């Protein structure tokens, strides 16, 4: 029996929704691919046709949320905002979109975003990184700083971003206000470095 593209998309969506629910309620460590498959109403083997591991599922959840955040950021009318403000809005819009996943993002991100995980199946994190950095380059070039930016600059950005991301995922302060402060200060540092380079 041939499976239509629509059915494939629907199954993938079911897997993502079931996984998000299980990660949030049962915890990242305790949730298995078998349980996710059962919750999505498919065989465990079928799940592997879609995702190779639960890290790949989490990476897809993050990727979808960040893509939506990017669209939201691009749609929002901005009026002569500074580079710092634009980057701030871009990053914070993404983190807000991920808010529902905060309970499991911290352990999941440990492997998804680890630079040492590139050869493992979890390297789905790479596509998130590339897509995010491309968006950042567009924002920066929109402020008159010509691309391409050096690898060191982009690495600095990504390192700071991951620091902010890690802080946010585990932030217990009201409304994650500590992350707001760290993001504000990280961007000051990044922009100062960017200006020195250019």
């Amino acid at each position, binding site marked *: 029996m041939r499976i239509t593209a629509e059915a494939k998309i629907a199954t993938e969506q079911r897997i993502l929704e079931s996984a998000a629910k299980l990660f949030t309620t049962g915890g990242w460590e305790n949730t298995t691919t078998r349980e996710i498959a059962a919750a999505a109403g498919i065989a465990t083997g079928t799940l592997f046709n879609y995702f190779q591991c639960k890290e790949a599922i989490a990476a897809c959840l993050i990727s979808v949320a960040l893509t939506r955040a990017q669209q939201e950021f691009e749609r929002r009318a901005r009026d002569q905002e500074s580079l710092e403000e634009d980057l701030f809005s871009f990053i914070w819009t993404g983190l807000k979109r991920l808010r529902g996943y905060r309970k499991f993002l911290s352990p999941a991100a440990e492997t998804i975003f680890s630079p040492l995980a590139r050869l493992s199946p979890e390297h789905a994190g790479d596509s998130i990184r590339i897509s995010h950095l491309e968006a950042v380059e567009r924002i920066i070039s929109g402020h008159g700083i010509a691309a391409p930016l050096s690898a060191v600059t982009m690495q600095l950005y990504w390192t700071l971003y991951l620091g902010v991301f890690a802080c946010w995922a585990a932030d217990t302060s009201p409304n994650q*206000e*500590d992350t707001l402060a760290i993001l504000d*200060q990280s961007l000051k540092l990044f922009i100062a470095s960017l200006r020195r380079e250019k």
Partner: protein
Amino acid sequence: MTNETLSDLIAALPQEDEPDSSTDAGLPAEQLKQILADLALRPVPVGSLHRLWTLGELSAQVALAYFALWIRQWFSDADTRKRRVMESNLRIGLKMFRRLGYLRGAITKLGQAAGNLPHIFPAQIADTLDKLHSEAPPMHFSLIREVLCDELGKAPEEMFAKFEKEAFAAASLGQVHRAQLKTGEQVAVKIQYPGIGRAIDADFRNLGALLFPLRLGKDWEYVKAQFAEIHRMLNQEVDYGREAETMRRASGLFQPEDGILVPRVYEDYSTLRVLTTEYIPGLHLPGFLTTNPSQELRNHFGTKMYKAHFRMYYAYMNYADPHPGNYLFLKDGRLGLLDFGCVQYYGPEEREIVRLCERLIEEDETVLPELLKLVSGISQSDPANETYLGLIKQSRDWMMEPIRSEGPFDFGDESHFKRGLEWFAGMVGSRQVRGHPMYVYFNRCVFGLKALLYRMRAQVDVRALHRRESERWRLAARDS
């Protein structure tokens, strides 16, 4: 901005205490420019350890600078010594400015608090630190927007009819934006920097650890109590809910005929970290002075400032932050009071001190032993306390001089201000730390108010004002 910063900094010092222009011209200006340029590029660390390290370095520098000064004093004649004290204070103030600006609000507040301990830091440093109230680097609008969304549940463009993206005033803990409500009222929205309240709390413990050597002193318990009071007041300052309540209470103390205005609080637009109040158009002290006001007008506003102080003091609410930015001079002659974060409420013990002091003002010396015991735990008859008793008498005479003088008291009188500085220098030199915690803020209040009136060259009939205000207090006490 740099030039304004420098001139404000210098203007905050009494005129005769400015550095000798023949020897030092331009040096602080250059130094400050460099510091500010450097600040703009510096990230602000939030990690507690980083803050501790920077503060540690700062303490060492301050200690070294004072040690060097102490050594030099042995070889100086009186005039040179005075000049060097002032030079040194300014230099240390600049160093602290550099670091405190770097660490932004949290340590800024601690620096200001340190300025309240006269036996540790002289007034000139406190004045320099006070400048940080209006010099902290601003938050950009995207950050402001997120804080408002989190606090008020709506973005500023949804919540307000108009919201100015640029702050019109800065505070060490955040900044103030002008806005208009959908119902038309002009308001000032004070927004706190995220996480600053908890950071202050953590930093205060670090500061206590750094000042550990003081524990070796026999009077450590007094220092500890004063520290606890400062800690309590700082925690109160970051609680905008508490500030709103204080504003409501203060507002109830003044009648329209007093001509003293406390801005109305808009509760639906306020939270623990956002405070929305009525916007009052008016001039701050430097702006007022540039209009070259008549002596009559100076006296008029000086009288209102003293009246506000008395009225709140006798309501057991000490308006403890008489900073130039906290007063507004309105065109119609009214005085606006802003920023009620630093108001010290008096409990039973402090009220008893107020009562005893009142009898002392009436020249009833029989209360002195009881008052001394309550304030500093010392006995009048112990010869070991002679120096301290001398300083207390000096302080009492200076504090009460305007009340005891018949007719308008001239706050522009340099000799009066100098006597205050001499007492202050005596306190610093003798390292006396005994004193009730209420005096940490009471002294700040009186010094601050007299410094403002000195700059205004105001003449105020304090005796008449005191008679009226203390009479109100007695009547209220009798009724209650």
